[in-house]
């Protein structure tokens, strides 16, 4: 299976990737999640062989791929803008990889039909790719990458250009196809919902390094750092200092915090306050503040206090009203 060891890459003196290592197991879908510019697309290009890393190696079944040129790697890659060949029909696009493998016309046609059915585009073979809608082009790009039977699939923000509804539909289909074929996959995105939907495992990438690696629920329940909590939008993140009594002093007041590690008094920590845990019976500390903003948000109200913290509330408070909110803090890192 695929394994990356210590991949580093610079672009014009700027470090894009800094010692990235991970492996993809049998039939596993791994998602690279990070902000734009975090180097995740570059990582895909390095795996595909389109870019050469300054340091580090890419292995397949313990064999170094450095000397294997792009066209011999047999990986599938779906580009962000699909990169369909405008001079070929839908069928011509899908047949391209099969022809490169030297398959005969009959076998090629059979496999093209099969791939078209797989992406629910049966009968589209003769169309011109420029006449297709965005979603249809996306399906053709997927079929084109799948048809040659790659040993690894890679997706570079494949749904980035589509609207929300279509994305939800396609990502479900994509998950089913990946599960039914059992092809291991690497999926690059900046959208956490997409990542949570499709991934068996999420790798969070920040400034060229993997900052957290785990199943989606793991990452959501135990964010490894303040950056992760902020990036995933898990709640308000406060900087604070551990006091003698084990509480944490922040600009919003004294807080109880659950911590995985023991902290010494005086140590600086970051505290996550999730916006949903505000029922009075939850116990813990209380934070009070004046309401500065109220926004309707998915059947609830997102209430922002003047100290910058926000919570979800079932009814809308008045602006300027002082609220007292029970909170449970979580130490980050």
């Amino acid at each position: 299976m695929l394994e990356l060891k210590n991949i580093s890459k610079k672009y014009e003196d700027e470090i894009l990737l800094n010692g990235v290592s991970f492996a993809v197991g049998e039939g596993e879908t791994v998602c690279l999640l990070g902000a734009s510019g975090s180097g995740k697309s570059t990582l895909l290009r390095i795996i595909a062989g389109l870019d050469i890393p300054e340091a580090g190696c890419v292995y397949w079944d313990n064999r170094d791929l450095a000397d294997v040129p792009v066209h011999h790697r047999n990986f599938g890659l779906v580009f962000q803008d699909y990169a369909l060949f405008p001079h070929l029909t839908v069928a011509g696009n899908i047949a391209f990889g099969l022809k490169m493998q030297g398959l005969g016309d009959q076998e090629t046609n059979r496999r093209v039909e099969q791939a078209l059915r797989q992406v629910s585009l049966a009968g589209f073979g003769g169309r011109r790719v420029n006449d297709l809608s965005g979603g249809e082009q996306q399906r053709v790009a997927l079929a084109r990458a799948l048809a040659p039977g790659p040993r690894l699939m890679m997706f570079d923000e494949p749904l980035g250009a589509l609207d929300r509804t279509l994305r939800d539909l396609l990502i479900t289909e994509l998950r089913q196809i990946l599960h039914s074929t059992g092809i291991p996959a690497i999926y690059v995105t900046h959208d956490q919902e997409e990542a949570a939907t499709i991934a068996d495992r999420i790798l969070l990438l920040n400034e060229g390094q993997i900052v957290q690696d785990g199943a989606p629920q793991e990452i959501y329940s135990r964010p490894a750092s303040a950056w992760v909590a902020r990036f995933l939008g898990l709640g308000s993140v406060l900087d604070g200092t551990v006091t003698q009594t084990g509480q944490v002093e922040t600009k919003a007041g004294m807080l109880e915090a659950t911590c995985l590690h023991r902290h010494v008094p005086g140590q600086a920590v970051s505290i996550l306050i999730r916006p949903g845990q505000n029922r009075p019976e939850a116990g813990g500390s209380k934070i009070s503040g004046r309401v500065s903003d109220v926004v309707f948000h998915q059947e609830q109200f997102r209430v922002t206090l003047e100290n910058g913290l926000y919570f979800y509330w079932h009814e809308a408070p008045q602006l300027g009203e002082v609220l007292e909110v029970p909170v449970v803090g979580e130490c980050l890192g």
Partner: protein
Amino acid sequence: MNSRRSLLFWLAPLLFLGVFFFYPLFRIFELGFEVSVLSDPRAWQTSITALRFTLFQAVLSTLLTLLLGLPAAYLFARYHFPGKPLLKALTAVPFMLPTVVVAAGFNALLGPRGWVNLVLMRWFDLAAPPVHFLYSLWAILVAHTFYNTTIVIRVVGNALQHSNPRLEQAARVLGADRRRVWLQIILPLLRPAILAAGMLVFLFDFTSFGVILLLGGPTFATLEVEIYIQALQLLNLPVAALLSLIQITCTLFFSVLYSRYIRRAAVVSEQRPSEMNLRSPAGWRQRLFVGLMVSVLITLFVLPMASLPLRSVTRLEPERGERTGFQAGLTLDYYSELFINRRSSVFYVPPIQAAGNSLKYAGMTVLLSLVLGYPAASALARPGRLEKFLDPVLLLPLGTSAVTLGLGFIVAFNSPPLKLLKSPWLVPLAHTMIALPFVIRSLQPALIAIPDRYRQAAAVLGASPWQVWLTVEWPILRRAVLAAATFAFTVSLGEFGATSLLTRPEYPTIPIAIYRFLAQPGGMNYGQAMAMAAYLMVLTTAGILLIEWVRVPGTEEF
């Protein structure tokens, strides 16, 4: 624009076009369709031989231009390298250089008295020049390549630069090796651009005159050269007219083919930001390609143009009669000799008068083409029914070669009512005819860019029509007018095709003087040709730079 006012604007330009374009063309038709010509098998034989060679050299030249232009386009579209903007500018300069200058440049490099031959003769103590480049088919092909490579670089390079690099990567990931990526992705996607560039290059090669006459010599007669020979040397005007008709028909056919293809092939692939495609060469293969291409381009584009001014100030061989003891080295003799009227010389006047004539003619051309072009461009900027009809009519002179125009003038103005052939005005009139479409085309976008609101606002504020023009229109138009004037000036300075047929011995222009000097034996004549050509090159280059400098953004076109 309402039609009565419109007619007023059009009166002068249309009158000019009628008298100095359509009337001569009509006379050529009359002459070429005479029964005595059409039934003369020798006239047809001459025509078919000329047509065949014209097509042959144009096809070969186009292929050679593509052979160099395609990798050069790839070089400029895909790689960063030091000095790239300069090199790209250098490849574009020849397109506007006068043919005589280019011919003189290649002569200075590879001619019997050029650098290469003289150096080889000295090194190996040879009695005769070892490199026979001039008066060969190769000279024609290389010069055409020199001229037109920039078209391929621009048209194909533009397509390459804006093509989506992910398409190539997608093909690679799908298992295509480099060769197959080229054959199955890059070339099919570039086909429309390559075909369009090829057709345009072919059109220029097909109508080329000066290069073939000066570098090919008398043995290589294309339609254009044959028209010149028939009209001027054999004084056989009817045959020349027949040749002109064939030439016009072919040019029209190819132009229509080209413009129809351009329209059909317009939308090919999506446009991409071009930076994504640019990279520095990495690995020995890419470095070798970049290094090799840059050397070839420098050799082709810099050496001939550098040889010329250097040769014009260098004495490398003894004059006739001074067998021994000559000094090789720098000299300004060739320049000072231009001011002396020698009895044995090619001219009846000091050669420098050619420079005076050229400047005078160019001045008249500027004046005439602006006076005629400005109202026409103003009318075209606000098109009514009349303008829609006249717009393509104004482009017709572009499709007619200068030699044909010259022939038309000879045929039309040699007899009453318009017996102008001895008038020194004839040459600038022909130059104006050639420059006018360009002048109109460069003024028109600037005029369109001035919204009527500006004029109305000025008028409401109390400006009279004259004040509106002076305070609103003129300040905006100044740059475009300067560019158009410079264009007309450089066109006139370098014009060779029509001038070679119309010029009178006592009024030579610079190109004509260079041509005559080159046709004469002797190192001194050769040196003077070099000096004149260097002078013309400097003037034209200054003009090109000025046009670049004042160019109105967004009007760049072929």
